[in-house]
């Protein structure tokens, strides 16, 4: 079993590091991990899950607001949703999503329709990508625990 655990732990470590290196996650994700303990072992997963729900809702708001068939686009409405998404992505350490929101916000302020539409598409892809990757990460954690091991603390530098 030990060999399995070691292997899983190594995978977990490598995967975690890669997520940070590729800017999927940032320091704030590390902060969230600090808030997890035996009393709240799923805290990070739960918060991220709420975040992803938020993404679905906000992106849908943005899409609706960017729908030209209903009339003139209200960039303020779009901007408001972008602002919220920027906030929550920042709070969970979703670095790429947050960065996209920054650009998105600029496009809203510039009332650049094409720019907004592009950002919307990218944000949609990005949160889904992150969601998949985190699912993989959480699965690795589960496997380690099921194999009787402990999830290692990963030092991100």
């Amino acid at each position: 079993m030990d060999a399995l655990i070691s292997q899983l732990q190594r995978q977990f470590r490598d995967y975690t590091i890669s997520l940070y290196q590729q800017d999927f996650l940032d320091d704030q994700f590390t902060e969230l991990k600090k808030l997890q303990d035996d009393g709240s072992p799923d805290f990070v997963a739960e918060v991220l899950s709420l975040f992803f729900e938020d993404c679905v809702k906000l992106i849908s708001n943005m899409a609706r607001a960017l729908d030209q068939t209903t009339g003139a686009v209200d960039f303020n409405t779009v901007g408001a949703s972008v602002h919220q998404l920027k906030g929550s992505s920042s709070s969970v350490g979703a670095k790429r999503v947050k960065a996209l929101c920054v650009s998105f916000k600029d496009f809203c302020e510039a009332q650049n329709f094409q720019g907004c539409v592009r950002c919307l598409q990218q944000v949609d892809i990005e949160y889904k990508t992150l969601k998949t990757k985190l699912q993989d990460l959480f699965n690795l954690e589960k496997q380690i625990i099921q194999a009787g091991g402990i999830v290692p603390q990963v030092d991100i530098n």
Partner: protein
Amino acid sequence: MGRDGGVSCLRRAEMNMMSVGGIESTPAPAPAPAPAPAPAPLDLDEVHVLAVDDSLVDRIVIERLLRITSCKVTAVDSGWRALEFLGLDNDKASAQLDRLKVDLIITDYCMPGMTGYELLKKIKESSNFREVPVVIMSSENVLTRIDRCLEEGAQDFLLKPVKLADVKRLRSHLATKDVKLSNGNKRKLPEDSDSVIITPPSPSLTISTESSPPLTISPDSSDSSSSSSPPLSPVEMFSSSPIDNDEDDDVLTSSPEESPIRRQKMRSPGLD
């Protein structure tokens, strides 16, 4: 879950677990007994924080941050709900609400409807709660904004995303409130502790945040041996740190005559 329009609801997950730090979650009957609150002067479990943020994710995070630092938390999603909770939303003064013990209010700045700044003003206008320290959180580091909030009486300004270190710092200031600092204050306080607010706490208080209307805590002040000292005066909250005037944004207006509290501007460490 989702936006229930009221208070945050991650508690369900936490309810069954023994949280760290002897926090208020209803103790499960069987496992480790919750530490019996000793009537010591430093009763850290008594701190009650009202957190205000329209973002569910942020509410959950701030709630967790506060709980992990031994605070009871009530989290609401708007300034209006905060006022409602405090009993400030209408003119009728409820006798029961006099018993409401809030040691700190931490609020987001940017919220639809009522901003954190507006909430701050309303709190400072109220006789019952004006002494309660109010901390503003914002994702934007705008000097004029910070300045304005501090001018209005905010105790501190945290930049989002809020980190554990930020909350620990806030918490450590609050912890000293239970120890009556007779001569411990290095600062001269403009108005010393003739602070109005809040009444003897009820130790085994569990604030249910599942309902949104204003909560009244049944007054059970028979045991006020612990922490009946008046709440910490605002100035005692924190120590000043010099501000780096490096932001491109607005020029700091200097007003030399102001009381210490107004010049104390804190930013989250590591901030640019």
